[in-house]
């Protein structure tokens, strides 16, 4: 294992210190318990957004803390959900008096830890609501699974809801908007290689020279099935098919197309995927009126991509375009 780290047990903490040094105007880092909050928080009278999850998905979530997006993010160990004390302290630190929304990706660990934190925060008279994102169509959503995972759609929800909160929406409205975004977005991912968790020291699975994992999550775990590697256009068709089927689009719909890199895939390849995904959308009469291309929700150095497609309404477009000032997403200000 060759990584730019000092000690597997110190990676998360040292990266947090690096972030604090790199972005002093945007964020503040709190240690023990670990969380990142916006530099100018808490913002009185504004609904606060708190998210979090295992580390190793950078820039998510810490890179999305700042004006117009998250108020705080709680990083766990690599691929391990953070603990309730982090979430509780973050929630208290950013509470502006009008409620806090927890945006939680649907993984048992994240859900249970955020639940405990919300209970504790409520005991301290903070009005906490939670939305669990579950946009990954790779997983059968049934009584017999932990339910669909929260993946790329979470980034879009955080941006859009962050803008709503920034412009004065109340807790109920931001919560409902977050549910709406989650209900309007679907995602699907593939891995061309595994990643290596520092404390494990070896790849999380191994793939043959022309094998890929189809239907992966973001924790280096195997996917829905293993298959032969294909050309980018064919893989993109396979990714788009369940997305389009699961969230029926009608001709004339507008959508945001998010082509995400898993960490080890060069940007040039993501644009090759974007090209095909956009053309598939166009064939269905869907207008891609907004886009995001880059490695925003990653699995360390895994090679691969995920596609998220969000059906847009005017409100979402307005909030998407609104200013955002975070380490990883920044525009309009």
């Amino acid at each position, binding site marked *: 294992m060759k990584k730019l780290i000092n000690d597997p047990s110190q990676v998360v903490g040292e990266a947090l210190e690096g972030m604090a040094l790199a972005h002093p105007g945007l964020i503040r880092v709190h240690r023990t*318990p670990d969380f990142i909050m916006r530099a100018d928080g808490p913002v009185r009278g504004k609904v606060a957004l708190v998210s979090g999850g*295992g580390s190793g998905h950078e820039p998510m979530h810490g890179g999305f803390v700042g004006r117009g997006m998250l108020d705080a993010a709680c990083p*766990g*160990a*690599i*691929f*391990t*959900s*953070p*603990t*309730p*004390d982090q979430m509780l302290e973050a929630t208290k630190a950013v509470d502006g008096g009008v409620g806090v929304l927890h945006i939680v990706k649907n*993984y*048992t*660990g994240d859900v*249970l*830890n955020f*639940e*405990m934190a919300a209970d504790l925060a409520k005991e301290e008279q903070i009005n906490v609501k939670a939305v669990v994102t579950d946009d990954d169509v*790779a*997983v*059968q959503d049934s*009584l*017999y*699974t*932990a339910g669909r*995972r929260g993946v790329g759609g979470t980034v879009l929800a955080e941006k859009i809801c962050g803008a709503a909160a920034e412009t004065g929406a109340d807790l109920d409205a931001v919560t409902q908007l977050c549910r709406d975004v989650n209900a309007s977005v679907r995602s699907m991912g593939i891995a061309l290689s595994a990643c290596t*968790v520092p*404390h*494990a020291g070896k790849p*999380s*699975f191994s793939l043959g020279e022309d094998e890929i994992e189809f239907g992966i*999550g973001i*924790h*280096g*775990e*195997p996917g*829905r*099935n293993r298959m032969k590697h294909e050309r980018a256009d064919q893989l993109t068709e396979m990714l788009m098919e369940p997305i389009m089927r699961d969230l029926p689009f009608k001709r004339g719909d507008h959508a945001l197309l998010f082509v995400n890199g898993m960490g080890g895939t060069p940007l040039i390849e993501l644009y090759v995927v974007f090209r095909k995904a956009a053309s598939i959308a166009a064939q269905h009469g869907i207008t891609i009126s907004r886009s995001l291309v880059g490695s925003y929700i990653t699995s360390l150095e895994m090679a691969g991509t995920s596609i998220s497609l969000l059906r847009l309404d005017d409100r979402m477009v307005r909030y998407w375009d609104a200013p955002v000032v975070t380490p990883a997403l920044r525009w309009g200000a």
Partner: protein
Amino acid sequence: MEALDVGILTEWLTRAAQRFGAEQAHLCDLDAAIGDGDHGANLARGFAAVATKMAGAETASGLFKMVGMTLIGTVGGASGPLYGTLFIEMGKEAANHATLDQSAWAQVLAAGLAGVMARGKARPGDKTMIDALAPAVKAMTGAADLSTALASAAAAARLGAAETIPLIAHKGRASYLGDRAVGHQDPGATSLAMLLAVLAELVG
């Protein structure tokens, strides 16, 4: 031995911490096959924290609540809240008993099981730690004495963990894999069986 006192329980958890340290890679490997490969690291980190905090616990109840809170604050993942809840609920039940004899311990363990099920919504057969814990609770009743009961519980947990191998998972990350989880032993059930084995070895 007639009952478990706070000294022996402290020793149990000290040895459990050692055991999880030693078994960290093994538990991570089990988790890598059907999860995200961190279960061993999570428990090793959590129990190492527990080990530094136990000195001075005066009651089993107080000890267990501290253990539960520490695990919740250090483990993370799915197993943090679940193992944490296990000990917190055990602690609550332990407060109702002056001595932790065989029958009291059966009730303590049963309370832990109920807490974990309430928190995680898993049932037996879902391929989780419940598949080790539930048979262990059952095996506590009807044994001749405390040490036999603990040995039966540990054996039942070990067997329950092994019996997760052919199962499809319905909870946790392994549930994403569908059929692909078949043929692998659940890491959480395995660690739970280890925890009970350490106690049986200590008392037996």
